[in-house]
């Protein structure tokens, strides 16, 4: 509403370097009082790093941070909080075992004359405050017993309770029911009227256009666009988020994928039917033919990784079937999926993919140990053979097979993981962001490998936030939105333009 001269919060030319990654590169960002500022970008764009810089979790390597026009340094989250910057994280960051009221007031409990916490008043105040957020349940119950949406509301109430001047919301609606989303928007409206600046991170375009004033787009750690959101149509916004201008894309040659793969056999090697999981997936169905690369398109949070996990048996399903070669998996778990011939490369390589402390050799052989052993005793010779085969084929650069995987570059780590998958002799390969965080050379090699594998008759499911990679690598693209299939691109439709169109189309 009021627009004082000095912006609430301003960063100029901020950079942040992590080992091997430039997470933020000369990014500038301004938040004015009373505005709702959307911060968008795909995975690895640098949004969360920027938020962490703004909230004092990270200290930038270069650049200035100004608060109300004055240069500041935040040495920790407490400094930022003291400056009136509150954050609501995507994962609820409260203490589930403590009561709702105690969570709401932690660190600022009302006290009586003796200096003791006034529990009665705390509970009354909490009930009153939360009623304003549509929460009427007993505030004395443990927070963890409430629905996730309600917990998110408590986090919001806590963030706003102190006189916050800046509220950062990281995907606040991802776990909310539609009714709760409306409550949230009501709160945002109130804050907006109070002159609070809000940084709003979300991938739901509808929401952005409904409540945000301005938008800042990041990609690969750089600032791509900033301006009023009404000046930008959906297609333009998606194009900013996903990649280079379309004219450039058409020249091709950005990726190392070859041409189309002919799917000679018409029987699908993988069939997913009606995969549903509460809050995550609703009725996702698709097929993959042998020798075909099927891309999963969509923005972050559209359900791409969840689909991969569901097929791999790592996400509990409420409904749906997965068939490999016409045979349905009886019990959906990773071991059964692996036995059926599904190999999965998870999105988070370090957390779920490889064992960083083990050697290249041990990682490659891990999934096929029983096959390389007699009576439980492994044959070093057979391991050497398989390790050698795959290290050569994937051109894994390591000082020796005994080198710790943690000491390799990201690209080589990824190749080790792929080698482990291929060693199992899979029929279907699920690749979730196979080229993220790896250097250009390795990226090209991985892309060429995917092509080669498809040519050999494997069915491949590919997820990538890199639009060109997805388009050039896939024979067909299943576009997801809000955990459901929003469209399918085949043949001539497999272009970045079509992809963006399907993603940007409002309301399905």
């Amino acid at each position, binding site marked *: 509403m009021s627009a004082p001269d000095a912006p609430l919060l301003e960063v100029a030319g901020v950079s942040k370097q992590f080992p091997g990654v430039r997470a933020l590169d000369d990014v500038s960002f301004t938040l004015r009082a009373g505005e709702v500022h959307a911060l968008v970008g795909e995975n690895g764009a640098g949004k969360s790093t920027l938020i962490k810089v703004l909230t004092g979790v990270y200290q930038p390597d270069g650049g200035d941070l100004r608060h109300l026009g004055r240069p500041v340094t935040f040495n920790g*989250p*407490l400094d930022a*909080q003291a400056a009136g910057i509150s*954050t609501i*994280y995507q994962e609820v*960051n*409260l*203490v*589930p*075992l*403590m009561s709702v009221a*105690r969570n709401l007031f*932690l*660190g600022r*409990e009302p006290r009586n004359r003796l*200096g*003791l*916490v006034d*529990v009665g008043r705390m509970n009354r105040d909490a009930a009153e405050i939360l009623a304003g957020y549509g929460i009427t349940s007993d505030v004395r119950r*443990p927070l*963890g*017993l*409430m*629905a*996730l949406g309600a*917990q998110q509301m408590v986090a919001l109430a*806590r963030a706003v309770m102190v006189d916050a001047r800046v509220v950062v919301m990281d995907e606040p609606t991802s776990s909310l029911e539609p009714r709760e989303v409306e409550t949230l928007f009501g709160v945002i409206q109130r804050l907006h009227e109070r002159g609070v600046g809000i940084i709003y991170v979300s991938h739901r375009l509808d929401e952005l256009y409904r409540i945000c004033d301005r938008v800042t787009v990041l990609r690969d750690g750089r600032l791509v666009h900033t301006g009023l959101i009404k000046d930008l149509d959906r297609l333009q916004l998606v194009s900013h988020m996903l990649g280079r201008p379309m004219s450039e894309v058409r020249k091709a040659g950005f990726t190392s994928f070859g041409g189309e793969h002919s799917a000679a056999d018409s029987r699908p090697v993988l069939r997913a039917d009606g995969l549903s999981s*509460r*809050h995550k997936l609703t009725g996702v169905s698709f097929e993959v033919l042998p020798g075909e690369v099927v891309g999963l398109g969509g923005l972050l949070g559209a359900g791409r990784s969840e689909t991969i996990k569901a097929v791999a048996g790592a996400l*509990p*399903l*409420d*409904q*749906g*079937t*997965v068939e490999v070669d016409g045979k*349905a*998996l*009886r*019990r*959906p778990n990773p071991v059964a999926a692996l036995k059926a011939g599904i190999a999965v490369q998870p999105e988070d390589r370090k957390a779920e993919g490889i064992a960083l402390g083990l050697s290249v050799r041990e990682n490659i052989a891990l999934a096929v140990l029983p096959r390389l052993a007699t009576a439980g005793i492994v044959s070093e010779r057979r391991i050497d053979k398989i390790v050698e085969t795959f290290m050569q084929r994937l051109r894994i650069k390591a000082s020796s097979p005994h080198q710790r995987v943690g000491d390799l570059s990201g690209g080589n780590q990824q190749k080790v993981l792929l080698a482990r998958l291929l060693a199992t002799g899979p029929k279907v390969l699920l690749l979730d962001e196979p080229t993220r965080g790896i250097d250009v050379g390795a990226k090209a090699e991985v892309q060429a490998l995917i092509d080669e594998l498809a040519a050999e008759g494997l069915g491949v499911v590919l997820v990538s936030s890199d639009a060109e990679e997805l388009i050039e690598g896939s024979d067909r693209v299943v576009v997801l939105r809000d955990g459901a299939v929003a469209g399918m691109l085949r043949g001539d439709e497999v272009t970045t333009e079509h992809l963006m169109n399907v993603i940007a189309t409002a309301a399905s």
Partner: protein
Amino acid sequence: MTLVAEPRTEKAEAASLRTERVVELVQRQGALAVLGIVLVVGLVAYDNFRSLDNAGTILISAAPAALIALGMTFVIITGGIDLSVGSLYVLGGVLAAWASQYGVAAAFAVPLAVCGLFGLVQGLVIAYARLAPFIVTLAGLLGARGLMLALSGEGRTTYLVDPGAFKDFGQGSLLGVKYPVYLVVFLFAAGMVTLYRTRFGQSVYAIGGSEDAARLMGVRIRATQIRVYVLSGLLAGLAGALNAARLGSGVTVLGTGMELDAIAAVVIGGTLLTGGAGTLGGTIAGVLLLQVIQNLINQDGTVTSAWQTVISGAFIALVVVAQTYLAKLRRVASG
């Protein structure tokens, strides 16, 4: 073949809420309920158990364990553990007996100062070097025992408590109840106020419940951690001093396994061993339960006292399994 998982209906949710309440009740009040049953059995079956004298004996025997369990409750709620308390208890006793020659004030001050300092060092190492509490306090167990042996001529010297106010405090009684029992009751009351009604108490729960969340919510993690280990050290030292006053000497051979008894009492009393939840009322019930079982075993005279440990171990297993079950239910309930 379909992978249809039953969609959660409202009926199922209500049922799970009911089970959850039952499990929660068992966890919270289980120790108290079992204590009640054991007391009734004892009163009916054993004549000698029924005397006021015996009640006094139970209370005074439970006093040191109760104090140690009091500190342990704080430590465990933060998600930590203190294995050094058994050694600190003996050390406290030896120090108190030695210092009693300089008067009652010294007899309390010396063990409190040394054991508190020991707790401080452990707290600092845990908070700043970020080593696992169990390994730090396990080393502390060894170190404190070494210190105790060094002070007592390798365990051969037994200091006798000087006759005087200190000994009188340990052995005298008011209305048939020994003085130390009153002190324990008072300290538990103070502990409850601290745990439930101060910001420090809230931080104790918060860092045990979720250290990351607590940090983001502005809780001072290190200060809280350090304080609970100091508290635990102080109370272990005090327990040792009281015991020395009662026995009239600083006995060097007791105290092995004391830390386990304390942990057992705390866990049986419903405190989550993983931290974040627990009550001091439960801890009292846990301490008394173990003590009453011990007393009954002694009354009976036909079974070995080792049954008490078997029972407490089985009880711990039961309680922790019930707690995990509860945690799982909660996760289901909140989707």
